[in-house]
């Protein structure tokens, strides 16, 4: 149910992203989706990788400091208010969204969003009870 996300603090300068991608390519690790948060000084690169353990090892072997966090992949219907329903649920239960970003494998009917929450376990409980569609890693990485 939970998904592993790898994140790295990288300098906000040319070449920083290249290094990470090169390491992953050299080790034949594919990135499923990524997002980059930037500030004036640094960026935080967050990666969703199917073989996250291999990815982690490759990056760490290259001397990089990598943080592993639990995130949720939530399937949201492409209708007005689809996302709102999820957010209301979380809000009612005082669960904070640290950040979220779209997953690249989305369909015409539904989109997949990655959520980083301050209380992942409770979120799973709450969302499942409300019959929100959470994707497990196998489903998420299934090639259609």
């Amino acid at each position, binding site marked *: 149910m939970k998904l592993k*996300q790898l*994140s*790295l*603090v*990288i*300098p906000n300068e040319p070449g920083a992203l290249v290094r990470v991608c090169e390491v992953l390519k050299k080790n034949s690790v594919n990135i499923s989706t990524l997002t980059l*948060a930037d*500030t004036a*000084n*640094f960026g*935080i690169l*967050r990666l969703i990788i199917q073989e996250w353990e291999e990815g982690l090892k490759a990056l*760490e072997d290259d*001397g*990089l*400091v*990598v*943080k592993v*966090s639990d995130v949720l992949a939530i399937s949201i219907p492409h209708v007005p208010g689809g996302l709102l329903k999820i957010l209301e649920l979380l809000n009612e239960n005082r669960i904070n969204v*640290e*950040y979220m970003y779209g997953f690249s494998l989305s369909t015409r009917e539904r989109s997949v969003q990655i959520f*980083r929450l301050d209380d992942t376990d409770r979120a799973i409980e709450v969302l499942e009870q409300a019959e929100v569609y959470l994707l497990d890693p196998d489903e998420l990485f299934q090639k259609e």
Partner: protein
Amino acid sequence: MASKTVFNPISAPDYLPQEQLKELQVIRLRQRVSEAYEKVPFFRAKMEALKVVPGDIQKIEDIAKLPFSVKKDLRDTYPFGLFAEPMNRVVRVHASSGTTGKPIVVGYNQRDIDVWKEVIVRGLVSAGLGPDDVIQVSYGYGLFTGGLGLHYGAEALGATVVPASGGNTHRQIMLMKDFGVTAICCTPSYFIHLIDKAQSMGVDMKTLSLRFGIFGAEPWTQEMRRYIEAHTAIKALDIYGLSEIIGPGVAMECAAQDGSHIFEDHFYPEIINPDTGEVLPDGEEGELVLTTLSKEAMPMIRYRTRDITSLNSERCSCGRTLRRIKRITSRSDDMFIIRGVNVFPSQIETALLSIEGTLPHYQIILRRENNLDTLEVQVEINAQLASDTVSGITALEKRIAKNLEQIVGIHAIIKLVQPETLQRSEGKIQRVSDLRNLNPIS
């Protein structure tokens, strides 16, 4: 003698009563000054300028009549200008990297090499090491005095020497583990790097047979000692020295870990006021000045080390009568002035190490932008402190900046960087890069 260490005959001078030691010092000083006056034109010229002759040295306090020497003197006489003996008597040379241009060169005859070995043996014995120890020397071998100096000293002790030299961190850890190494000699910053590396290799330093670390060649702090001792099962000891005098082994900490004993029968210490040159009494802080009492190939008279410390003449709990120098955490020449504030890199280190999850690797960058000096501290992040949120990283930077401002008194720009982004040498680490152009062409 309260010491539990095995008595080694070579260590006898360590226990000489102060009065007897003074007699020995003055005899040796007179001899060295005469030789320097006769054989080294540079020293003769300096003494003549002060109207001093060797005969003016009657008691040890008369040393204050002699001229100082500084690093620039070695550069000006490059390469062999300060040698007192012909090259067919010189058996070895070493060189240390100067900050600019040519290195400084030092020379030894066989007797000097023997003195060097002797002081290192005495230092290692005072730490509690002996022939049963396996000592890994991870200082660089070569022109740098660290590697070969400790190598021959450890060998003379009768220990098993693993001459690993610097670099190849992975292999260093493998050797330590597989060879049952009990003591390592390297720079403290390199050892912290080894601790990090061992962790990532899944090696628990605490389970190794490593019991001692002999650390030197760069200033380090009590906080670094605590960090090292908390992450390993070793006693971390300070060794002090400089090529100009002999190399490592001028002073070393005994097992009491309460200051480093200066091997005063070979190196005469004074503490001076760095501004006036006035000699200060024991206990007062100032610049350490050293005179070689035994060295023949290249005597040094009143060499200004730029290291700030004080001399402690109280009897040590180990029983040795040799005076001790307080831990050197600052050099008067790595101090920098920013916006009128004197800053020592060790202060920045203290601020960084006071954060839980400690960040021991850092570099200081000074810039001048629009006629305003900025202090940037690049700090290597570690897995414990990494965050996946911008707010988490920003909060950490703020926390570091606040700690730093409390200790140093000025605001710094904190930049978190990935490990190994910072230049890490196996010799001395260059902590400060001053990019300020003080004479801008406008």
